[in-house]
């Protein structure tokens, strides 16, 4: 028999409890079922051989409720508490070991010993002081080493354990049996100062490293901290405060000024201004009214409103952002592969080098050869720092992706962050990316002398376009709506992709579309051309209307450029990145818009399905290409690009085809994302150069390669200080990324 607790969703009253209990008890294999309304849980005792969790869930579902296993996520608080406890423990060990090491040094260091009280000079006292340092403060090293040996693996702790044990063990031998070392001509001098101080310094380095490392995941903690705890839900006409995990889709929620919006939803009643900066990075508060979408965890500024929950739990925008950032921080950058490969062999190689050092110094070194051999071998073990290599890339990726998220730049994985710094060309889709995507009619031009139907142009065009789904059609229909134009009936409506539309009004054949359509229809547009050209030169898209084969008028439509477009492009140009605009518009219109934005390379008259091919053409020029689009219509082009950048839409953040999603909808963030990538990569490279360089240079020094030339050796104490500084400096360097301006 097994006892399990499941969460139950959808209970309202005591009768629900009985219904669910009965449903569970009637399931074969269940011996006991207790449902608790307050905690919304069911405690079920059952035979797992007869009945599965899924069967229990379906029994509950059959009576109209939902049972599920609550994820055994360890609460953030518990995790934090454990980290704090570990840090406090580490601090105790640091203070303890450094204090005792200081006493030992006072009693043994040449020059200092004259200042020390007599008893500290006694090597038995030094033994007593060094022993708890070795076996209590240094216990974590042994605790890591022994189980690792069972797995035939070794790490950083193995090196420290072997190194300090060698120094401590030799010192004990010297203290207890001085005659043994004396018999081989060595003065019986212990090295308790080495063993104790090395442990103290390494622990100190580890303490600083742990504190710094906590800073690398700050961004994600901030995001998690944004989540609202409760929601004021209107149920049965009453307002009740509910814990956030009990809010269900469809709940009506009331939000007052200054309050946090608990989950994602759609406003039913009321209006307000909402500050979404904490989630989307969008800096200006936006006005919201009924029908508008609101994002959970953002702040309601001015008004009170009621809204319907549309996304709860793991579906909310914030939860999706957290998941995406966590995934990015868990992914590996290609640049890390080499460090991974080296770290797999690193520790065994260092142990081998230490043995080699011992043998060489013992066999070929000066007198007392044994002491030189021992101290240099210990120095090799202590100086080696595999941690710095392991930390170099992931800490920078964590800070970089977190920094991006804070600014509304969501990076899918470490690889995307790495690739973005190599981008040389950025292709922008025009409609909906550089422009707002809501074109408006700016001019309605009647072409004189053609039947005097000028006043009806908008009416004919709007009647015809009523059946079309194109965004330009929408502009014409809404203009007609605005001017209260009565629409006429259309027969045989037909859309001609890439050209326009046709149909019959009043038994007359009407066509509306671009010049290509007019050519196809063999309609002469010569005397409208000057007007058409001048409209297009203003960046407007012009549609031509013809009735029964005769030109009657022009309708010009224009989309508003996004506020951030010009600055966004300027920023890229400053970075010497080529900017390309891709659009279905004709050359003249496209050129005019490009001119307004300062874009020099324009790919005009590109049909939607050709965008991907255009991206590939640019890649064939040997350049790294980023494509910026809306993520839906441009998905193939985004996927084809080296870096696909999608502009955020609504509350969906995980855009499949995109490597980077700009949820702040700000075009300046394209340059910011590339800058972030460049800075992150610079930090990673610097970290790796440091981590590799440190080991490549200092291990040979510790082995004594400089001794024949300069008589220089590295004391194990200096080795431990260098090693402690090494990993701290890598983590601190990654943390500097937080201060970078993007």
């Amino acid at each position, binding site marked *: 028999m097994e006892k399990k607790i499941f969460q139950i969703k959808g209970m309202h009253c005591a009768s629900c409890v009985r219904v669910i209990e009965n449903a569970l008890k009637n399931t074969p294999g269940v011996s006991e079922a207790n449902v608790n309304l307050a905690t919304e849980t069911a405690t079920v005792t059952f035979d797992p051989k007869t009945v599965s969790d899924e069967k229990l869930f379906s029994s509950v579902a059959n009576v109209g409720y939902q049972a599920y296993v609550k994820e*055994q996520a*360890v609460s953030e608080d518990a995790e934090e508490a454990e980290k704090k406890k570990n840090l406090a423990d580490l601090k105790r060990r640091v203070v303890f070991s450094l204090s005792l090491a200081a006493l030992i040094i006072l009693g043994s260091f040449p020059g200092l010993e004259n200042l020390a009280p007599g008893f500290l000079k006694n090597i038995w006292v030094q033994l007593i002081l060094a022993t708890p340092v070795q076996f209590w403060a240094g216990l974590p090293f042994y605790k890591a080493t022994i189980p690792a040996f069972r797995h035939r*693996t070794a790490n950083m702790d193995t090196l420290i354990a072997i190194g300090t044990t060698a120094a401590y063990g030799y010192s004990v031998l010297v203290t207890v049996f001085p005659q043994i070392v004396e018999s081989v001509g060595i003065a019986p001098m212990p090295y308790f100062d080495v063993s104790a101080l090395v442990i103290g310094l390494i622990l100190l380095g*580890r303490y600083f490293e742990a504190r710094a490392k906590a800073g690398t995941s700050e961004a994600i903690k901030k995001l998690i901290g944004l989540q609202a705890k409760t929601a004021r839900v209107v149920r049965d006409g009453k307002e009740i405060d509910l814990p956030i995990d009990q809010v269900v889709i469809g709940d009506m929620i009331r939000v007052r000024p200054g309050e946090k919006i608990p989950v994602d939803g759609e406003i039913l009643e009321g209006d307000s201004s909402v500050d979404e900066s904490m989630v989307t990075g969008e800096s200006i508060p936006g006005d919201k009214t009924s029908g508008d979408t609101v994002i959970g965890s953002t702040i309601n500024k001015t008004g009170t409103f009621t809204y319907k929950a549309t996304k709860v739990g793991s579906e909310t925008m914030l939860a999706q952002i957290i998941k995406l950032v*966590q995934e990015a921080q*868990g992914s*590996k950058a290609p640049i890390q592969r080499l460090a991974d490969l080296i770290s797999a*062999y690193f520790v065994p190689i260092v142990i081998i080098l230490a043995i080699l050092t011992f043998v060489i110094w013992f066999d070929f070194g000066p007198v007392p050869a044994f002491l030189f051999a021992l101290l240099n071998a210990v120095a090799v073990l202590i100086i080696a720092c*595999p941690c710095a290599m392991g930390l170099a890339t992931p800490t920078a990726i964590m800070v970089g992706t977190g920094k991006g998220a804070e600014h509304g730049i969501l990076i899918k994985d470490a690889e995307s962050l790495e690739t973005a710094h190599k981008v040389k060309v950025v292709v922008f889709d025009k409609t909906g990316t550089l422009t707002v995507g809501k074109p408006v009619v700016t001019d309605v031009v009647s072409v004189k002398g053609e039947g005097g139907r000028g006043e009806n142009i908008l009416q004919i065009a709007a009647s015809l376009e009523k059946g079309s789904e194109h965004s330009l059609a929408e502009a014409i229909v809404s203009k007609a709506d605005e001017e209260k134009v009565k629409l006429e009936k259309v027969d045989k409506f037909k859309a001609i992709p890439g050209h326009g539309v046709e149909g019959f009004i009043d038994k007359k054949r009407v066509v509306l579309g671009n010049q290509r359509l007019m050519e196809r229809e063999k309609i002469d547009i010569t005397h409208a051309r000057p007007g058409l050209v001048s409209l297009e030169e203003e960046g407007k898209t012009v549609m031509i209307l013809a009735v029964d084969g005769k030109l009657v008028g022009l309708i010009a439509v224009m989309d508003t450029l996004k506020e951030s477009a010009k600055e966004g492009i300027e920023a890229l140009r400053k970075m010497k990145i080529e900017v390309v605009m891709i659009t279905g518009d004709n050359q003249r219109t496209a050129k005019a818009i490009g001119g307004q934005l300062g874009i020099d390379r324009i790919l005009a008259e590109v049909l939607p399905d050709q965008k991907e091919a255009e991206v590939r053409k640019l890649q064939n020029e040997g350049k790294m290409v980023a494509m910026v689009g809306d993520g839906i219509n441009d998905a193939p082009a985004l996927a084809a690009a080296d870096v696909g950048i999608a502009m955020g839409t609504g509350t969906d953040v995980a855009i499949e085809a995109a490597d980077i999603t700009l949820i702040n909808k700000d075009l300046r963030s394209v340059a910011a994302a590339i800058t972030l990538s460049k800075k992150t990569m610079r930090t990673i490279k610097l970290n790796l150069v440091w981590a590799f360089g440190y080991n490549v240079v200092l291990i040979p020094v510790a082995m004594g390669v400089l001794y024949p030339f300069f008589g220089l050796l590295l004391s194990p104490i200096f080795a431990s200080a260098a090693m402690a500084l090494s990993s701290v400096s890598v983590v601190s360097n990654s943390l500097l990324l937080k201060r970078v301006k993007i």
Partner: protein
Amino acid sequence: MGIISEDKIIVAIVGSLGIIFTWWFFLFKKEKETAVEKEVDIIVSGGYSPEVISIQKGKTTKINFIRKDSTDCLSEVVLGDFKIRKELPLNQKVTVEVTPQRRGEFPYSCGMGMYHGKIVVR
């Protein structure tokens, strides 16, 4: 030229044996693969037990990490190919789910890349 003393010869021989032993001990261990159907508990203590698991392509496998070792290095596990980085609080079960879409060998490691394991997708 003096004769090389006995102790130097002994140290050289013992040292060489030590080097060979170290190489063999750490780098020539046999990987034992554990086939996993749906769920597996991996004990994290001085490494991962089992260290190498094989799972099925396209099927979701639950991997429960239970850390018994207080070594700081092991307090995080990274399954880079599956975009998973998880904190492993001491003595608590932390479950990750993977649904591999392609066959191959996918290494996983501790946060600093010191301890290694492998997921083999068949």
